């Protein structure tokens, strides 16, 4: 008898359907998520490269070696060069504005597009070439400020350049100099004529590289060790803190979700295989009584499994492809760029998953079939071959571990998830047993429906413990995903809430402070307090002078930073060490930002000497603060009691929120206070927001898929016990029990299972989320009271309904029919 024929026959018998479905679902979920995330990741990566206008970039405040450009070109990479500096721009009528100048070589941008218009606020056009030599593109806002039009000339340094277009958006506007004043984009070849770039000027040199990863990566890797002090390799992380960390977390989350999908699939397969094999013990006993040897049985089931796996891989792969295609067709419009190709990897991952699942989850019970005793044909009550549960579970655990490691490539994430799973299983197994006992005791005193349900729960104590463990596992995974997703999204939104300051004002003279404050108040813009700002330099620690600038040598160097004073701890800052001073303190104290303290290697009690201008200032470190640099609030490395700095020359700064439609306010402001520097962050914030929105959408989608997987596990779990319950129900009905009694018993039984599973799942989910958020996702943790209701209630409803749905035939068909089929 060939395995193929057995499969066909079994298929007709309907028993194989469950196993095949579980396998198909597993492969579909894994390959679907894998394809989805890899396409999403490649699209997000493209998006992030857009922010550099390149795949990789090097930046420095000094000129970069020209040979790097040549080396990159000979490695087959595209290159471009940038020069960024602030400069006064003059119009013919001697009007002048401080602009943030960007000079670009012709090939700029390598990634992304320049958006421009032929008039100041005209129709948008897109291009990927820098302005031609002799021309400039001006930020729309510069047109009224300079009173110029397209075609007029402006002067940058010694060069007169023709205004060719209005620059509306550039791919890398969020990075680097962040736009000290409105942008002027010019061609690199005009720089010598301007004579503005002198040794010692505040400029940023940048070299941009783009190309295939296979070419780029070796180039960047070779470049990295050659970087000297002051030269920086730019990637998404350091060019875009907010976006970088959002992407990292999104990636971690998607990987986590994918891994949990695998765990769920594995559980579903193991359940289905166990049920399949249990139903096949009689089959094998008969085959053996008819003379089949164990080798033959193994070959038979092995070949069946192989065919099943092949079929499931094909079907699941197709389904997975369809799944991600559906996602992208439904939500592709929301993505900023075309989703990238997924390549064959997702389907390889899917096939490998099928193989591993079959070997680790399905084969152990099936392989043991060959040890079924043929005596079972004479004595049906003979127990099935000993279940080597511990061994099976161990093998399953190893398989899950291996798969998760392979998918995520992240040891810590894998271990965190696994710790949660293990804790959950151990907790559930122990607690389920106790709960089931307690349930029986309670049921004994209750009415007959309750007694029926609770007795049934306890009678199958072992099987029910297993079920509670499986249910709680599935629910726990879902809760983890919901919790992590919620806090991820909340944190992102909290990071940049509506009304987040989107403009910074620097260099406000002390005599202008009141006027500026009034002007902001008059325009009813939301602004932060005005902070004094003093440039100062740490020159000695505990009496030891520090090294300077690029001097070689170990240890901390002199650092220049912004100093401010404050009576109270600035909002949003967290004191990590030491105490805050009394509001009227006249002591010579300082509070240092955590990272700064680390790089200076100072702690509370150390003495610092600052140089402000030429004036020395000796203070003692009173506290160390943690600052959220992504908050868009004015943040300072060094805070002093007001009395300490009061006599030093200070300028003031603040940040404020300007709604998108009110940009004109800036024009008036700049005219009134030409010396004040305006930093526009609104574009950066908008970009971060857009990415967060897209990533959130992606996460919701992946969560949806995992929910389906979780529901399948629940269904498989309920189904695995349906046979016995159907049988009992049919017997009870035959004995004259009413439909209400039986249905009530089933409801109570499954609802109780759901309650226990939900409680256990909630506890384990809290533990796992704690580990995940504090260790892996690098987020803060708080208890989630909302899931303490949600978990158990959802579990009761879901499992109760699934149980009743699956057992509905007990009450809907004649008992004789049910008994006969079982």
């Amino acid at each position, binding site marked *: *008898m060939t395995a193929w024929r057995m499969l066909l026959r079994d298929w007709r018998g309907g028993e194989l359907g469950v196993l095949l479905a579980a396998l198909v679902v597993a492969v579909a979920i894994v390959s679907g998520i894998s394809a989805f995330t890899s396409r999403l990741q490649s699209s997000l990566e493209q998006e992030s490269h857009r922010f550099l206008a390149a795949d990789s970039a090097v930046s420095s405040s000094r000129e970069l070696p020209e040979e790097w450009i040549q080396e990159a070109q000979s490695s087959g990479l595209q290159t471009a060069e940038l020069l960024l500096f602030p400069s006064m721009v003059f119009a013919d009528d001697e009007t002048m504005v401080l602009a943030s100048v960007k000079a670009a070589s012709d090939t700029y941008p390598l990634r992304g597009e320049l958006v421009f218009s032929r008039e100041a606020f005209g129709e948008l056009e897109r291009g990927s070439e820098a302005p031609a030599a002799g021309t400039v593109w001006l930020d729309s806002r510069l047109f009224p400020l300079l009173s110029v039009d397209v075609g007029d000339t402006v002067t940058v340094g010694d060069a007169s350049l023709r205004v060719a277009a209005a620059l509306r958006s550039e791919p890398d506007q969020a990075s680097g100099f962040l736009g000290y004043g409105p942008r002027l984009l010019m061609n690199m070849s005009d720089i010598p004529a301007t004579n503005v770039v002198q040794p010692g000027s505040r400029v940023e040199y940048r070299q941009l590289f783009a190309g295939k990863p296979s070419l780029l990566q070796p180039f960047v890797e070779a470049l990295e060790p050659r970087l000297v002090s002051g030269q920086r390799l730019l990637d998404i992380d350091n060019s875009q803190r907010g976006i970088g960390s959002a992407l990292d977390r999104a990636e971690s989350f998607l990987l986590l979700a994918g891994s949990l999908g695998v765990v769920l699939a594995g559980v579903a397969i193991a359940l289905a295989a166990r049920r399949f094999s249990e139903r096949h013990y009689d*089959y094998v006993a008969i*085959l053996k009584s*008819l*003379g089949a040897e*164990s*080798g033959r049985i193994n070959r038979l089931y092995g070949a069946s499994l192989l065919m099943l796996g092949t079929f499931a891989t094909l079907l699941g792969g197709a389904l997975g492809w369809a799944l991600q295609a559906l996602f992208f067709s439904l939500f592709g419009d929301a993505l900023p760029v075309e989703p990238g190709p997924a390549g064959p990897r997702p389907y390889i991952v899917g096939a490998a998953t099928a193989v591993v699942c079959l070997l680790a989850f399905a084969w152990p019970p099936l392989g043991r079939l060959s040890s079924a005793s*043929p005596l079972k*044909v004479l004595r049906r009550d003979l127990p099935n071959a000993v279940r080597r549960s511990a061994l099976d579970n161990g093998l399953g655990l190893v398989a899950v571990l291996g798969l998760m490691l392979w998918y995520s490539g992240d040891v810590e994430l894998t271990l965190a998830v696994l710790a949660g799973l293990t804790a959950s299983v151990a907790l559930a197994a122990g607690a389920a047993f106790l709960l089931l006992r307690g349930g029986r005791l309670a049921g004994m005193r209750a009415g007959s429906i309750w007694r029926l349900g609770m007795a049934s729960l306890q009678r199958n104590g072992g099987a029910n413990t297993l079920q509670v463990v499986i249910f709680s596992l599935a629910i726990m995974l879902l809760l983890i995903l919901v919790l992590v997703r919620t806090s991820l999204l909340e944190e992102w939104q909290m990071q940049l809430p509506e009304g987040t300051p989107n403009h910074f004002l620097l260099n406000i003279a002390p005599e202008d402070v009141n006027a500026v404050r009034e002007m902001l108040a008059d325009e009813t813009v939301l602004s932060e307090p005005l902070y004094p700002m003093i440039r100062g330099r740490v020159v000695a620690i505990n009496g030891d002078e520090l090294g300077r600038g690029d001097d070689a040598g170990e240890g901390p160097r002199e650092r220049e930073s912004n100093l401010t004073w404050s009576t109270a701890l600035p909002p949003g800052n967290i004191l990590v060490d030491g105490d805050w001073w009394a509001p009227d303190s006249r002591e010579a104290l300082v509070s240092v930002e955590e990272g700064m303290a680390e790089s200076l290697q100072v702690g509370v009690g150390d003495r610092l000497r600052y140089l402000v201008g030429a004036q020395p200032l000796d203070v003692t470190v009173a506290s160390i603060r943690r600052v959220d640099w992504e908050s868009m609030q004015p943040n300072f490395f060094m805070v002093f009691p007001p009395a300490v700095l009061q006599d030093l020359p200070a300028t003031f700064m603040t940040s404020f929120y300007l709604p998108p439609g009110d940009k004109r306010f800036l024009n008036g402001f700049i005219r009134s206070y030409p010396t004040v520097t305006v930093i526009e962050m609104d574009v950066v914030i908008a970009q971060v927001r857009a990415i967060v929105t897209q990533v959130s959408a992606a996460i919701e989608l992946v969560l949806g898929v995992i929910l389906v997987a979780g529901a399948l596990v629940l269904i498989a779990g309920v189904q695995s016990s349906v046979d016995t319950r159907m049988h009992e129900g049919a017997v009870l009905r035959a004995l004259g029990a009413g439909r209400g009694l039986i249905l009530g018993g089933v409801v109570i039984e499954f609802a109780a299972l759901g309650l226990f599973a939900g409680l256990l799942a909630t506890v384990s989910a809290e533990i796992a989320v704690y580990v995940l958020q504090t260790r892996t996702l690098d987020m803060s943790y708080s208890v989630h009271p909302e899931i303490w209701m949600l978990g158990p209630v959802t579990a009761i409803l879901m499992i109760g309904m699934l149980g009743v749905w699956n057992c509905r035939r007990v009450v809907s068909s004649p008992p004789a029919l049910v008994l*006969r089929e079982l």
Partner: protein
Amino acid sequence: MIKTENLRKRVPLAEGELEILKGIDIEIKAQESVAIIGASGSGKSTLLGLLAGLDVASEGDVWIDGASLAALDEDDRARLRAEKVGFVFQSFQLLPSLTALENVMLPLELHGRDQPDNAARSFLQRVGLEERVDHYPSQLSGGEQQRVAIARAFAAEPAILFADEPTGNLDTATGAHVIDLLFEINREQGTTLVLVTHEQRLADRCERRLRLHGGALVGDESGSARHEPSSGAPHLRGV
């Protein structure tokens, strides 16, 4: 054909060991029909399981055609069963996911016979079920299921047929019909028949009756077995 020597079976219980068979010595000749009778719990089915090599004796041995079962492992015993042994069970033991035809084909396929479905079809015809070949066990009555089981048992043309309470789950009339069929085909094929029953009527049709009591052989009577059909079952020429 079948020989046992000091055949014992013990099972461990919480309060010690229980000896189900207490040293059985029997010899069954080829083509003989033997009934093992006795009350419930006398060890009938255990003896049958040991004789057929489905179970392993605690002590003593069984020889089938001179081959010692104790010397064989489970797989060797399976091969022996495939070659020489057929079964009919009280609870029929048809595979529920296979049709009547496929159930009968099963031993033929295990034997590697050519065209198992033709042979299976003719056996089903022999037991009068040619109209029900494509039915599943759940669509057949008990008597019909047992007839399929008989067709399956004889399809591989075994030298020995073991039957465990073949009429235990059937009403009297159906049971009688099934018994007729069993003996008819047995006679046609010259099979050695060993059956377990507590039905005197069935035991009486065997050439020899072994009576068990409390795990010991307490009677071995040969007697005038009645070979004539007890009911008007159709006498079809098979195979």
